[in-house]
């Protein structure tokens, strides 16, 4: 399969829409665990990406360049914890996609692995610490496994999304060890992590983008 630059941008656009739709839920989760702003922050960040797509990146077809600009737009709009994490993800992803305007299956899986590894290296969270890593890491590992096993990208990514979902759901019963919510100790148990939740939304939107790209 192939994903064009315009489909890649459409993915980013759809994440923006999804974040807007879910931002109150995300803030609500963060009210329980942190400072109540995760939806606000994600919305600000993705609105900045959206703006970038409509202006500087309007006619851009280099997916690597797109990623880099998108990462910078995101962090400069939000700062916060997620700013450096997602920015690092996008910057790492941008290296993989440099000078590419059509993305192959290999590009796509390399992108996601780089993206997630970047986030992990920046934030140094491990699985089980109740962060977005609980969504991303299982997804990354499943994706790589399935690709290595020879699955086509779409079905591998579908499995990855399922693994991410399980990871996201697992955060409900975890004690937070990273970020603001780590101060709560056992009081953090019982609420799903907002960052893990928004991470899942991103994966889910990517899957549906790939699917609709396939249908065309």
């Amino acid at each position, binding site marked *: 399969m192939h994903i064009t630059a315009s489909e890649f941008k459409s993915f980013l656009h759809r994440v923006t829409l999804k974040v807007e739709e879910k931002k*109150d839920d995300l*803030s*609500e989760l963060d*009210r329980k665990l*942190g*400072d*109540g*702003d995760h*939806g*606000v*922050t994600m919305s*600000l960040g993705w609105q900045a990406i959206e703006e970038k797509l409509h202006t500087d990146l309007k006619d851009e077809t280099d997916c690597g360049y797109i990623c880099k600009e998108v990462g910078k737009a995101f*962090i*400069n*709009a*939000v*700062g*916060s*914890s*997620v*700013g*450096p*994490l997602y920015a690092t993800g996008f910057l790492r992803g941008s290296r993989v996609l440099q000078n590419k305007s059509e993305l192959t299956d290999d590009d796509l899986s390399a992108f996601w692995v780089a993206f997630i590894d970047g986030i992990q290296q*920046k*934030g140094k969270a491990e699985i089980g610490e109740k962060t977005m890593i609980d969504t991303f890491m299982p997804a990354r590992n499943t994706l790589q496994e399935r690709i290595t096993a020879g699955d086509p990208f779409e079905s591998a990514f579908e499995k990855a999304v399922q693994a991410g979902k399980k990871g996201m759901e697992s955060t409900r019963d975890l004690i937070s060890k*990273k*970020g*603001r*919510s780590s*101060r*709560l100790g056992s*009081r953090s148990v019982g609420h799903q992590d907002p960052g893990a939740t928004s991470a899942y939304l991103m994966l889910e939107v990517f899957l549906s983008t790939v699917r609709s790209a396939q249908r065309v």
Partner: protein
Amino acid sequence: MKKLINNPQHVVDEMIEGYVKAYPEYIKQRNENKRSLVTSRQTPDNKVGVLIGGGSGHEPAFMGYIGDGFADGVAVGNIFASPPPDPILETTKAIDKGTGVIYLYGNYAGDIMNFDMAAELADLEEDIRVETVLVTDDVASVAKGGEDQRRGIAGGFFVFKAAGAAAAKGLPLSEVVRIAKKANSHTRTMGVALSPCSLPQTGEPSFELGESEMEIGLGIHGEPGVERGKVQTANDVADRLLKDILHDMPLEQGERVAVLVNGLGSTSRMELYLMFRRIEQQLNQKQITIHRSYVGDYITSLEMGGCSLTLMKLDDELADIVDYPADCPMFVQK
């Protein structure tokens, strides 16, 4: 909650606009980045740059503390969110005089990631030496033994002031860092919340407290504290905050402290003075001398209700630093 705002998305930028217009003789906004604020005054050559920052919503912190004897620049984040590297870097460039810049901010994961990125860029791209001192004064956040993992709350006022005074005295970066670290290690805070604040964008209270409940040890972004209970009298609350601080940082009779009773936003001055009254009585009884007192709103959480108590243990060097004059839009000390 009702607020006097326009578009909730624009509160931070509009606040900065108003702020800069109110105090042009103190502050200017950098053309290069509107979230970068620096002193509009001429500072001495070779002066170490003092950069403080963090999320918005803590006014008068941080932007209120730009001025003589205090900070040279502030990077402004969204509400309760670290500023991104860009305004930090921009501020760093503006205030560096070749002698380096000290970054001072509360110990939060997000802030660390953003400030560290900026420090790296300052070093790589601009060849500016940056040192960082984290504020870790909140006794409630991590038990004794884990002091350096604690979050930073109102005690930042003392740490910023210490660095500001040291830099204003013309000390080199290493000394400014040493004094800021010493100020931090001598500073402890315990807070109590009586009512939540709400983010302009969500309008939702940051936490829920029953009609007659309070929470001890709550963070300045509404992060939960150590204990929830019935609202007590000012005296009992003061005793509790003081007890926790003195348990963590024992003080001998004859020692000196600076005291900060900090309102979180909506608590009346009347209440803050009642709190101070009891603290003074207790310290006096223990024969601990109050060298200087600060009572008022110094680092807030929007319109949160409650207050915090901060003690900084003083030796001659820190006493001198506390007494050093400052002249900022929201804090003047002669």
